[in-house]
């Protein structure tokens, strides 16, 4: 028959019919077309556009109503068939569902975190307009210099890109009038702070411009959590008063349960109520920086524009106040989206974990595809019979996809349950990396992700198995048995899948191994002090009771005297902070860094001044922490307020500034030469900002010269935690209004400082362990199958004189070949992916030979073990039984 062009109507009809199921079309398409042709001819004979339109309308409606009905019918029959098949093979079903559940569950859990923390917009109206502004001293390596009151006023007046600009700083104050004196975390904010974020109060009101005026009656806003836990959600809380900083504060409102950035606080107060922020020094001195600044972009303005705007303002300030912004410090200012700012630490870890979870799912997919293929080998005859009974190829493909879809869905639901169960643990972990952790939950988009993952999974392994059923349908009816050799294409595919599983497992194990090695290295780092049997107690005293430094010095002396006299205390000291304090770990050295001058050294034009971190400590500090004296002397009681200023430096500072001279006797200043401090001693380095951070320059000054609230450090003879109660009582004996807010051993502090790498290593370890088990089981499974398929051949070999040892070797060799290939690909993959983990490692190269060889050997050993059992069975084949089997 020659190729004739069909009339347009018929071509259109044919296109339309394609929405019907394939089998239906095979059966009826020709006839339907015949009927339509007749109808169309009739309409044409009668003429008239109306008739033709009516025919098309009816035809389209008919097909569109028939199609879903036919598809549905096939789906229900496929599903019930699939369920019957699943029930018939409970072992296969359980293993497949569990494997998929683990893969999908791991992905759902990690995705819910990534989605809540990295992807979702901040839960404020137009959250993408919120930005974080920072002043930097680029040349000194200080990324966040903070803002002074004067600077905030300048930015507020001069910016052209923001619809609002607010300030924030966090303080701890003691609250009276509600049972025991209680330390509350207090956010000190601009009056329009909550308005800028778009937060409406749950009760009462937020701050008004009048609240911020100097001398305004102090008012408080309670956070939802604080109101709930400490006041039992008292609806009549608004209007109640509390004493704080010797002033009466009135509660004016309660915040809704919104995530609080940048820190969680118990209460909020307006700037004028903070005794520091409203002091003359802070109001007038441009260089008293302690505030953070947030802004909201005007509509249509980009972050880049706001950043440029901030830089322009900074340049103007530099020109106007050269004393505050010396040329050589590299002063500038920039803006970043608030969302990015809040998640910058979590991002690399979370992305690494998401990648790891995806690997687990891929391995799970490969494993289930393998299981399915193994089952297909046993189902070939069934499928061939169905095919012979008239089921079309696509009908069988569809049936197999339905089966895999059902498996994946059940696995997905179970995975969701697993993910839900792990959420609390994950939230706790991510809480160390970002304040957004509390927003982690499973919502509709996470469910959609799970559904997509399950669907994608079922398509991947369903198609793989279906493709092979197609290839085998014709052959298996002809062949009597499943006596297929190792050259069988299905076995080749299965072997390829095993190689993939081994390769992915290898990469995951490398990730986990590298993290573990980092952690071990970090644990071995000498912190520079003796954390054992040392206790840190965070204390705050009433700022309004101890207003002068003389009063504070007296209090600190009394405290130290009383605590040191407690039985079991070897020594006690006061400092403004303790090593591994969470605030130090998060803020880093730069949060306590300042620049200074050395007597007799002039700077080249443009040369940055030296910088150092700074700590004020009481004389016993070094002895209490076990920090060794290298040269000179330590502080004594004589280095009091009246004595000339003396300072102690650490070895890092000596190495950096006086590499070839003796710094003892040299003098330094940080106020342009009004006060000079003479170096009297050099002590060992302390890694107080985290074990993975190299020691930085540190300058110690006597506590008497700069008395500040902070930490009581105690070295004890016995287990330090047992003394916590007695020591707290001792503090309250000296001054009942001094609150002890945190007590922990320095060993605890060190342990906590490594929480983030530890949890990352644990999670990666869990994923890698999962992968190892799945891959090993896969190797064992395929080798067992190969042995089963080759029983006859092995029997013949043995009958012909092959020794069992050589059979064992042959099977073992086959299994090991797969493992070696997998490890080879895994090595290449791991090297290609090193960039992902590099930033998270500590003193371990991403291609660490020890980790690579260790992981490789582990995998090969596991593979050898997995192949050994089937190999032994092969060697034990009785040729008589094997040859009779058929």
């Amino acid at each position: 028959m020659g190729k004739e062009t069909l009339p347009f109507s018929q071509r259109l009809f044919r296109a339309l019919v394609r929405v019907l199921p394939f089998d239906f079309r095979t059966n009826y398409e020709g006839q339907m077309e015949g009927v339509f042709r007749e109808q169309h001819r009739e309409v044409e004979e009668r003429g008239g556009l109306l008739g033709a339109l009516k025919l098309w309308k009816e035809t389209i409606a008919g097909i569109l109503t028939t199609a879903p009905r036919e598809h549905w019918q096939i789906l229900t029959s496929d599903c019930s068939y699939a369920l019957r098949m699943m029930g018939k093979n409970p072992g296969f079903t359980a293993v497949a569902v569990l494997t998929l559940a683990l893969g999908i569950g791991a992905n759902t859990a990690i995705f819910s975190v990534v989605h809540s923390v990295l992807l979702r917009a901040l839960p404020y109206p137009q959250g993408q307009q919120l930005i974080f502004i920072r002043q930097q001293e680029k040349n000194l390596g200080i990324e966040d210099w903070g803002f002074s009151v004067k600077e905030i006023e300048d930015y507020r007046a001069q910016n052209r890109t923001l619809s609002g600009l607010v300030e924030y700083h966090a303080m701890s104050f003691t609250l009276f009038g509600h049972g025991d004196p209680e330390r509350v975390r207090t956010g000190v904010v601009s009056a329009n702070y909550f308005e800028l974020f778009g937060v409406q109060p749950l009760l009462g009101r937020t701050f008004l411009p009048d609240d911020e005026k100097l001398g305004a009656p102090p008012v408080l806003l309670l956070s939802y959590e604080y109101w709930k836990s400490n006041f039992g959600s008292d609806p009549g809380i608004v209007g109640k008063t509390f004493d704080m900083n010797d002033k009466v504060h009135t509660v004016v409102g309660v915040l809704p349960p919104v995530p609080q950035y940048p820190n969680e606080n118990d209460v909020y107060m307006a700037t004028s109520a903070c005794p520091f922020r409203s002091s003359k020094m802070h109001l007038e001195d441009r260089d008293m920086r302690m505030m953070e600044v947030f802004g909201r972009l005007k509509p249509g303005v980009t972050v880049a524009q706001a950043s440029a705007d901030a830089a322009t303002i900074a340049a103007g300030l530099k020109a106007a106040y050269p004393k505050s912004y010396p040329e050589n410090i590299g002063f500038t200012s920039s803006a970043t989206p608030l969302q990015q700012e809040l998640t910058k630490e979590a991002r690399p870890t979370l992305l690494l974990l998401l990648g790891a979870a995806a690997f687990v799912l891929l391995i799970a997919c490969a494993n289930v595809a393998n299981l399915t293929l193994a089952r297909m080998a046993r189902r070939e005859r069934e499928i061939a019979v169905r095919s012979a009974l008239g089921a079309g190829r696509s009908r069988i493909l569809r049936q197999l996809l339905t089966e895999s879809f059902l498996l994946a869905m059940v696995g997905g639901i179970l995975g969701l349950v697993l993910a839900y169960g792990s959420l609390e643990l994950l939230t706790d972990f991510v809480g160390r990396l970002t304040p957004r952790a509390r927003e982690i939950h499973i919502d509709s988009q996470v469910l959609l992700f799970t559904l997509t993952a399950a669907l994608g999974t079922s398509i991947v392994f369903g198609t793989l198995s279906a493709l092979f059923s197609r290839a085998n349908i014709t052959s298996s009816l002809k062949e009597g048995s499943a006596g297929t050799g190792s050259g069988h294409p299905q076995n080749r595919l299965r072997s390829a899948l095993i190689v993939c599983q081994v390769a992915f497992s290898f990469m995951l194990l490398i990730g986990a191994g590298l993290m573990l090695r980092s952690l071990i290295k970090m644990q071995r780092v000498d912190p520079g002090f003796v954390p054992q049997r040392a206790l840190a107690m965070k204390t705050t005293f009433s700022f309004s009771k101890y207003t002068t430094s003389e009063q504070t010095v007296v209090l600190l002396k009394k405290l130290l005297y009383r605590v040191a006299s407690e039985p079991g205390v070897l020594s006690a000291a006061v400092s403004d902070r303790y090593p591994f304090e969470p605030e130090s770990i998060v803020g880093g050295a730069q949060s306590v860094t300042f620049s200074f001058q050395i007597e007799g050294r002039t700077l080249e034009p443009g040369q940055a001044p030296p910088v150092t971190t700074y700590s004020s400590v009481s004389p016993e500090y070094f002895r209490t922490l076990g920090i060794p004296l290298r040269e000179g002397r330590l502080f004594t009681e004589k280095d009091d307020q009246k004595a000339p200023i003396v300072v102690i430096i650490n070895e890092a500072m000596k190495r950096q500034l006086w590499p070839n001279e003796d710094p003892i006797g040299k003098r330094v200043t940080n106020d342009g030469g009004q006060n000079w401090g003479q170096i009297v001693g050099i002590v060992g380095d302390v890694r107080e900002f985290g074990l993975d951070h190299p020691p930085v320059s540190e300058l110690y000054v006597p506590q008497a010269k700069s008395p500040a609230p902070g930490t009581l450090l105690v070295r004890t003879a016995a287990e330090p935690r047992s003394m916590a109660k007695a020591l707290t009582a001792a503090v309250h004996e000296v001054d009942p209004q001094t609150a002890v807010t945190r007590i922990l051993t320095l060993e605890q502090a060190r342990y906590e400082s490594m929480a983030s790498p530890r949890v990352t290593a644990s999670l990666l370890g869990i994923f890698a362990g999962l992968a190892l088990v799945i891959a090993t089981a896969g190797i064992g499974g395929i080798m067992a199958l190969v042995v089963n398929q080759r029983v006859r051949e092995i029997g013949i070999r043995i009958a012909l004189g092959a020794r069992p040892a050589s059979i064992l070797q042959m099977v073992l060799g086959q299994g090991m070949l797969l493992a070696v290939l997998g490890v080879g690909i895994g090595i290449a993959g791991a090297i290609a992916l090193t960039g992902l983990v590099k930033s998270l490692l500590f003193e371990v190269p991403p291609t660490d030979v020890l980790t690579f060889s260790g992981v490789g050997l582990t995998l090969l050993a596991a593979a050898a073990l997995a192949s050994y059992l089937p190999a032994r069975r092969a060697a034990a084949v009785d040729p008589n039984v094997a040859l009779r089997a058929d």
Partner: protein
Amino acid sequence: MSKKRETESFLPLTAAMFHILLALADGEKHGYAILKEVARRTEDKVRLSAGTLYGNLSRLASSGLIAESEVRPDLVLDDERRRYYLLTEFGREVAVAEAERMEEALGQAHAKKLFRKPKLA
């Protein structure tokens, strides 16, 4: 399942199904003939399109109410692509049951004097 209950499980039939069964009651027909017959007998009130016709034929055939005919008319008259359908004994029972169901409903409507006689002017 008893035969009666099996028959009743199909009731009520859709209008399209009932009319297809009716069309086959007096002998086997091919698709287009069924379609024409239904349109003629219902004065175009029930119009089947190709899709609805074969959707229904497929379902009726898989339930055993109709079957494809083995016998074909003379080749001259026959288009080789056409397939002929016939009413099975079971299909006839179902059609009768449906007709009886309708008859009963009609009787009840009469008893309730649902059909008012036109009033004389």
